[in-house]
């Protein structure tokens, strides 16, 4: 393999990895706080891409405005999903909320089929994203730079919120012990809503960039990236934001590299993440960065 090909693959891996990482953060934050696998997260990712599409084709919004509206709508949706489907089940057995999440996930998928149709749709791309940059014999799409840069900016913003603001302090407190936090005066419901809001916004950013990078959207587009991002979150250590970033990036790299070095295994590309999941759960269930989460008895 030539070195330019290798760099090309590295860049592709970085792009894919940072997209996974953005979704994985949403999973890891919700799991850290509620011990719930938010199955509907992949659908939030998908709907964000559709919202942009809708905004442009139906309401003729300028591209940037459509993006902002989509992110805003997705945040509201994230909070709404929690309020409707998870909040009533806070005191129920954990698996009940998980089943509810699976139900919501299928609901949103089919909602998209009903409203938008099952046919894949072409996404609008602004022109400056189409021009290929040539650097030696390496062809670089602007997106391969924009996506990681954007992801890093968003993650820095997130780290600021989590570690430098009062709301972030609340989040960290709740993930340690929800009851005590409540007693100490943390407004638990508000912080949980904020968590869903931030997680959904990041998923939305990822979904929109995904639809630019792989410019086709369809109702099931969130399923596989959703699963993989969850696996990335487990891989990095669920509950840890840094872990989700590292896990997502590594998973993206590994996927691209395995297909690049072993083209015969290309058909097994989607299986790779699941095998990784099972291996991680067996060897080190806490993941790369995770602390052991106490089971709430």
């Amino acid at each position: 393999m030539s070195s330019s090909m290798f760099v090309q693959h590295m860049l592709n891996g970085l792009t894919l990895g940072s997209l996974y990482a953005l979704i994985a953060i949403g999973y890891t934050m919700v799991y850290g706080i509620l011990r719930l696998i938010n199955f509907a997260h992949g659908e939030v990712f998908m709907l964000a891409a559709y919202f942009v599409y809708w905004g442009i084709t139906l309401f003729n919004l300028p591209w940037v405005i459509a993006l902002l509206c989509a992110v805003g709508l997705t945040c509201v949706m994230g909070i709404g999903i929690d309020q409707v489907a998870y909040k009533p089940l806070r005191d129920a057995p954990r698996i009940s909320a998980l089943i509810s999440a699976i139900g919501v996930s299928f609901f949103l998928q089919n909602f998209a089929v009903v409203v938008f149709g099952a046919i894949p749709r072409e996404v609008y791309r602004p022109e400056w994203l189409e021009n290929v940059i040539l650097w030696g014999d390496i062809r670089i799409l602007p997106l391969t730079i924009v996506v990681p840069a954007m992801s890093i900016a968003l993650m820095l913003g997130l780290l600021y919120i989590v570690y430098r603001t009062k709301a972030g302090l609340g989040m960290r407190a709740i993930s340690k012990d929800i009851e005590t936090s409540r007693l100490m005066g943390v407004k638990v419901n508000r912080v949980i809503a904020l968590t869903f809001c931030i997680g959904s916004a990041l998923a939305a950013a990822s979904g929109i960039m995904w639809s630019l990078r792989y410019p086709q959207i369809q109702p099931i587009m969130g399923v596989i990236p959703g699963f993989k991002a969850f696996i990335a979150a487990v891989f990095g250590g669920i509950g840890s934001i840094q872990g989700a970033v590292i896990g997502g990036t590594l998973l993206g790299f590994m996927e691209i590299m395995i297909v690049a070095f072993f083209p015969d295994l290309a058909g097994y590309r989607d299986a790779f993440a699941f095998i990784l999941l099972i291996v991680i759960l067996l060897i080190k269930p806490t993941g790369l960065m995770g602390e052991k989460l106490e089971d709430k008895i």
Partner: protein
Amino acid sequence: MKHAQPSAATRHMLTFGALAALVLFLFTAEKFADGYQIQILNLIAVNTILALSLNLIYGFTGMFSLGHAGFMAIGAYTCAILIMPVGQKEMLFLLEEAYPIIQNSQTPFFVAVLLGGIMAAIAGILIGFPVIRLGGDYLGIATLGFAEIIRIVATNIPRVTNGALGFKGIPDFATIWWNYGWLLITIYFITRVVNSNFGNTLKAIRDDETAAQSMGINVFGHKMASFTMGAFFAGIGGALMASLVTTIDPKMFLFILTFNILMIVVAGGLGSITGSIIGGIGITALLEWLRVVENPMTFGDFTINGIPGMRMLVFSLALVIIILFKQEGIMGMREFSWSWFLGLFKKSPPKKNKEVR
């Protein structure tokens, strides 16, 4: 709710009577119902088998498993390979030739279904051994991963599974008699298991694993046994399904299939065999009825075009509503019994005569 216990002889008579009624019903159905109605009856039987097997794993042992589609796929492919005539298989494997053992094996239907179950059970042992120690949602996601792996592998080994094309024209041996025969076997077996001492142990593990462990119960062994049995019957269900729908391919075994079965179990009641049977009938009928929503409708002069996706939309909404408002499902953990049934016909006794126990 204690009713006078009918004698064992009475109960056996009643059971026998109910079985005779079922046979009579199936006989009538076979004679007079049209193909579509018979297909629904068959689907009810197969779905109930699948629901019972999941209920054993999740409802009675408390292991949240999402791997049913994988076990079904194994059962379905095994059965399809074994019942298809050798000549037909030669025609089927166009792109790549099948391995000789796949090409030349052929068994009677009963053996094929049984082997489908056994292969699924073996897969259950292989996957259960590493992942069963995981608790709660992690087990769910790991088994879901397993099911996806099975599906992807099935797409990538064309010399066994014919790749993405799958099998077409599988002989339709799964008559109403086979399906309901297997259903009765499943009900009988799982009822016996659940009511045995072994079953009590499973329920103890479900209710409090730590306590069960400290009572000296071999938690891992019991979980493995339950998981393997569940996988076996899921394989049986998949095998019957293959012969029932006569076409299988990897796309059929997506997560949605597991979701449908989970829905039956949750709606019927976790930990209730009666619930799974009622759920199997109700949900299968509902899913078929919901096809109406996707077909064009005409009200007088209006015609509403069919809306694709509406069926699963309503269906998933139903699951969320059930889990939000009636978590215990239709039956909770209660079971049908003859004494309860007979109690329905007796005048309810005045309150002062209520039995105190």
